[in-house]
């Protein structure tokens, strides 16, 4: 049977990569200066830590609840299998085979493809810059958790001690602590508000902690992950047990998982599921390729890919359950407070004895009073208390961690303990993801020979950390939060999709799927089966392509708005929406456009360079 060979010509490939025999020889003699994992556990924990990050805790639960609860599992699981696992296996296999980092593998496949490596390095850099600021925020909250009562449980007093600070009274103590005492946020992105010294200290602390873990590369990282990758699971379990004993927790879990199958008909559900699977796996950063290249050649990368994908998926669901037990508790608490507030108002206005109105007869009493004294009742203006409204105050991201969850913690007994546990968990989740991000920057920098070879590893990591620390000072200004969401929305979304799509196409069609199949057979002993062939060749690139197009179209068509905390606005304490200034478009282009364009531009540049070299070579031959 004639197989259709869809492959672009790639001469010279054999000369650039190590052959199978050379790989075996390298393995036996243990020569070569490439670092190695101490054992398989370190490798697995590092990859799990890289994949399992803050998104599993604060993005997935929100998506799950807002897209039909249990029904969201269906697109999530389908896309996990069709998109996540194949891409993961591909990155592991190519890294293990070519034994290079995120830039070296593409340069080896074809020098024109170096742009992919440069794009993934740029994206890793962008994301590292702001991700560590989030870790600095987490550290700030962690340091503030060692006191009773917690500082975000009550409003501070105003200057002449007559009452509470007005900004706090109009919103809530947790909002005030987040927006004023932590961020000291300005009302617009143009006002920078200066550097906040307490955040600078936490920022330096975050980068120092990262530095000490990556100071000698995977030699130190491999030890750090024993703690940073396992501790979150311990804390999640503790919170699950604590959460299940709180009132209202089961309401929260039920609300999370109640399926609404009509959501499956909306394309945005599938799009969000696909994007979540993609970002959750930390693909296209270059870090996974790099980690995998430190493995032995005959490591079973297929098994690793499947195991890590399953762990990632299960962690998302587990974290969502835990989060929603606590959210259920908080919503029930709010509902009870709302109800008792109303009951008290009614008792006071109608001078009824206490105990006349309870939770059970509330509705009947309200109806009776409304009928007998309608005018008085209208004037009261009671707020309707609805548990579902409180439950569906769906929050994600920093709002979930620093506002909703911290409020819930203040209502639990022995709050400082829970606060410390929670923020240590977030810190570990963030730090283990940072290891992968930094790997995605350091290894390409070494491949590009930015640092002289004589420099020891400690100096290379030190300089990188210091430079990132200094650039990251943007996010510590008053307007830092707005810059961070800008970077997150544009720098961390589209370029990654472009890189992932190019990765798949390069490996399958430029490196050659047949050669790739042979490589995998050499490495793990059997050829990848039909599932891998179908997903690598057709299904996964198509899915990536669709997600990319949809993202591109939605981002281009929507108005550039951002949410601000403005005490002077009418909508306060709800966030106000403002339009970005015009010069932000330049920043967006730098963040999203330059890495994406790096792929074709570098290709063209190298092509021109080669042609010039060929021409000068030919002309020198004629001399």
């Amino acid at each position: 049977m004639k197989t259709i060979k869809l492959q672009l010509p790639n001469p010279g490939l054999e000369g650039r990569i190590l052959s199978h025999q050379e790989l075996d020889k390298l393995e036996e003699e243990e020569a070569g200066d490439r670092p190695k994992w101490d054992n398989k556990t370190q490798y697995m924990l590092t990859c799990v830590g890289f994949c399992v990050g803050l998104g599993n805790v604060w993005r997935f639960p929100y998506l799950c609840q807002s897209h039909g609860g249990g029904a969201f599992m269906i697109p999530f699981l389908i896309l996990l299998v069709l998109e996540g696992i194949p891409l993961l296996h591909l990155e592991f296999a190519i890294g293990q085979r070519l034994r290079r980092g995120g830039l070296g593998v593409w340069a080896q496949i074809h020098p024109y493809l170096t742009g992919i490596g440069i794009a993934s390095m740029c994206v890793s850099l962008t994301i590292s810059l702001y991700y560590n600021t989030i870790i600095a925020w987490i550290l700030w909250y962690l340091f503030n958790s060692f006191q009773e009562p917690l500082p975000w449980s009550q409003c501070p007093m105003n200057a002449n001690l007559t009452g509470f600070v007005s900004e706090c009274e109009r919103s809530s103590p947790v909002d005030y602590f987040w927006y004023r005492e932590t961020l000291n946020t300005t009302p617009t992105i143009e006002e920078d508000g200066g550097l906040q010294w307490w955040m600078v200290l936490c920022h330096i602390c975050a980068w120092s902690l990262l530095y000490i873990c990556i100071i000698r590369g995977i030699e130190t990282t491999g030890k750090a992950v024993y703690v940073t990758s396992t501790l979150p699971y311990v804390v999640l379990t503790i919170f699950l047990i604590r959460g299940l004993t709180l009132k209202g927790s089961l309401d929260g879990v039920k609300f999370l998982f109640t399926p609404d199958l009509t959501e499956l008909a909306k394309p945005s559900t599938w799009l969000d599921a696909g994007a979540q699977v993609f970002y959750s796996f930390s693909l296209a950063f270059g870090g996974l390729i790099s980690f995998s290249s430190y493995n032995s050649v005959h490591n079973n990368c297929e098994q690793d890919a499947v195991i890590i994908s399953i762990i990632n998926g299960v962690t998302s669901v587990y974290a969502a359950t835990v989060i929603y037990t606590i959210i259920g508790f908080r919503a029930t608490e709010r509902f009870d407070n709302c109800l008792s507030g109303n009951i008290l108002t009614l008792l006071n206005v109608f001078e009824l004895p206490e105990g006349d109105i309870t939770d059970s007869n509330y509705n009947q009493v309200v109806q009776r009073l409304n009928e007998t004294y309608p005018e008085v009742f209208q004037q009261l203006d009671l707020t309707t208390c609805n548990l579902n409204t409180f439950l569906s105050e769906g929050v994600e991201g920093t709002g979930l961690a620093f506002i909703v969850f911290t409020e819930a913690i203040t209502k639990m007994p022995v709050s400082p303990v829970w606060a410390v546990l929670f923020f240590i968990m977030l810190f570990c989740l963030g730090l283990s993801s940072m290891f992968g991000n930094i790997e995605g920057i350091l290894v390409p920098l070494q491949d590009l020979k930015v640092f002289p070879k004589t420099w020891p590893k400690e100096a290379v990591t030190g300089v990188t950390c210091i430079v990132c620390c200094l650039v990251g000072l943007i996010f510590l200004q008053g307007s830092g939060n707005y810059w961070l969401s800008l970077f997150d929305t544009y720098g961390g979304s589209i370029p990654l999709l472009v890189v992932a799509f190019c990765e798949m196409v390069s490996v399958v069609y430029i490196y050659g799927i047949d050669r790739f199949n042979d490589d995998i057979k050499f490495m793990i002993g059997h050829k990848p089966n039909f599932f891998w062939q179908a997903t690598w060749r057709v299904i996964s690139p198509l899915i990536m392509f669709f997600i990319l197009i949809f993202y591109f179209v939605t981002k281009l068509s929507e108005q550039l708005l951002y949410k601000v905390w403005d005490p002077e606005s009418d909508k306060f304490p709800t966030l106000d929406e403002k339009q970005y200034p015009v010069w932000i478009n330049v920043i967006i282009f730098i963040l999203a456009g330059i890495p994406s364009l790096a792929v074709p531009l570098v290709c063209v540049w190298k092509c021109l360079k080669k042609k010039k070299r060929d021409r000068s070579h030919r002309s020198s031959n004629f001399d």
Partner: protein
Amino acid sequence: MLWKVLLLLGLSSAWAQKLCSPGASDGYKVRLSINSALGDQAYVWNENEMFLFRATLAFAMRTYSDGQEYDVANVVVCDETPRVSFWFVVTSPLDASLLVDKRRVEEAVRKSRSRINSAFLLTDDTLEFIGIPPTLEAPVAPDTPPWLIAFGVVMGGVGAGIVVLLVSSVVQKIRKKRDGEEETGGKTENEAASDAIYNMSFSDDEPVTQM
């Protein structure tokens, strides 16, 4: 004679009732929420409890006002509701028809608020004087913010760790160089062999260098 006394008593109580009325300019409304404060251990509000209230208020006026000898009779209560709320006014001990100024009453209540609360096992929220907000306690501000202490501990540990790691790698390098210099004497052949292997990895780098 008896009917004169009775008339006087009746008149005085009527007079007192006129002094105290809901919305009186020199009076305050009090509201108690005994059930929500004490739950199962709530006591029943009756005449005796009301007597205690009047006595406590008289005590407050005696101690924190002008020092005159206020008596239970000087605290007049009216408009009791099943909610357990009522209005009260304070009459001067010298002249039963004169009401004590609102501000003096407020001052006395403010200063003895905690004593009044504890007499009834209640708090500022559950024993409300409508119009007299509870004085907020001044917050206890520690000298060093606690977060700075935690930060200092962590930074100190990390700094020490970094220094230890850097020093240990420098020491390792010096030691290796010293060992290498000692061995250059007799082991040239082995070096040549290891060079051969290293050459292979250098040839690997060339395709990368061409970037």
